[in-house]
């Protein structure tokens, strides 16, 4: 562990690199997965929270070890905590929904129907229990291993495997329900 394969195809040793340089590499490689994870969690401003996650990571770069996998183990718990903070704040403040007139393609449908079409992957995910959603977000979007996911979710690896199987089954059930509903 320690030698990783960055997106440009070369090799890069995060543990030996200068912290700022390692940070730059991690931002390039992981900002989008962090953003996707936060987006799938329904955070209202995933880009802003992604920046916050990396700003929280930067002071810890000197203590980073374990290469790319170690960095992921460090970053995604921060993202997880920020998402939890987001929902705690939202319990106190009414949720806001953005509306972009340029993106409004409706002709006769309501603005709500046009803004929230209701057939995206996030809506399918939203229909699952929270544990299932979290295991799919961490495993599929963030690309974490079983062990890393277990660490973040404070569960055993066996429990995560079990959750994963049930999440896939729940996903399949949701797809069947939608197919039946559309017929």
């Amino acid at each position, binding site marked *: 562990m320690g030698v990783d394969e960055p997106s440009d195809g070369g090799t890069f040793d995060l543990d030996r690199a200068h912290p700022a340089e390692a940070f*730059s590499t991690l931002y390039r490689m992981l900002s989008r997965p962090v953003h996707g994870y936060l987006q799938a969690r329904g955070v209202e401003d995933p880009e802003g929270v992604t920046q916050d996650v990396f700003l929280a990571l930067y002071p810890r770069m000197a203590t980073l070890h374990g290469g790319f996998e170690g960095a992921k183990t460090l970053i995604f718990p921060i993202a997880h905590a920020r998402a939890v903070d987001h929902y705690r704040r939202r319990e106190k403040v009414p949720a806001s929904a953005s509306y972009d007139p340029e993106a409004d393609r409706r002709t006769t449908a309501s603005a709500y129907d046009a803004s929230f079409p209701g057939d995206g992957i996030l809506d399918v995910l939203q229909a699952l229990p929270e544990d299932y959603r979290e295991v799919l977000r961490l495993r599929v*979007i963030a690309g974490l291993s079983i062990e890393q996911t277990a660490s973040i979710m404070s569960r055993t690896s066996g429990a995560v495997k079990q959750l994963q199987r049930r999440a896939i089954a729940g996903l399949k059930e949701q797809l069947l329900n939608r197919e039946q509903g559309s017929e």
Partner: protein
Amino acid sequence: MTTTTNKNGDQGTVQELLPHCNPEDQRAIKPVLEQLSALGTGQPIQPSPEIAAILAAPSGGEQQPTPLNGLRRRSRRTAITILAVTVSLGAGSTAAAAATDEAFRTNLGNSISAIISTITGGHINPAGKPSNGHNPEQKPQHPAPVPGPGNHGDGQGKAPAGPGAPSEPAPKETTAGPNNGPATGRAPEPKTSQPTVPGRRL
């Protein structure tokens, strides 16, 4: 350990999850998992100014960002606000008391006058009257220059001292008396704080 990144859409994870399904389900589930995986792929997020500053100097010794700076600023601002509100409330209650209580105003005026008198050396007293029977106007601020025998004044009556006290300091000079010089033959003006002998310093 060499790992693949999300550049390839975490196909590894998707392939890892699919064996849990039968082949028929795999065909239905795979596109959904790939859509989900696609949320974590693409170009890096546009960096904020703070992130951009770090990225711009990848190997420099730039000062580390401190996300708590904002919190410290907020705390300092809160403390200043609390202090300002406290001072305002104190001033307001003092003004209210002064507006309603005549004795308070009198006492406050006396106190302020006493303080000013202490600072200015007794030139002002609360009632505007001479204190202790001593007229401060008669006490010059500076010892007046007294022309001595070799001292050549301008000859305009500025040498008040009588012949008996050529080198006495000024306090005696303002006392009207027969020894006063010709220019000081009149009574001292009550409202002036200048020495009665404004002799030019030589």
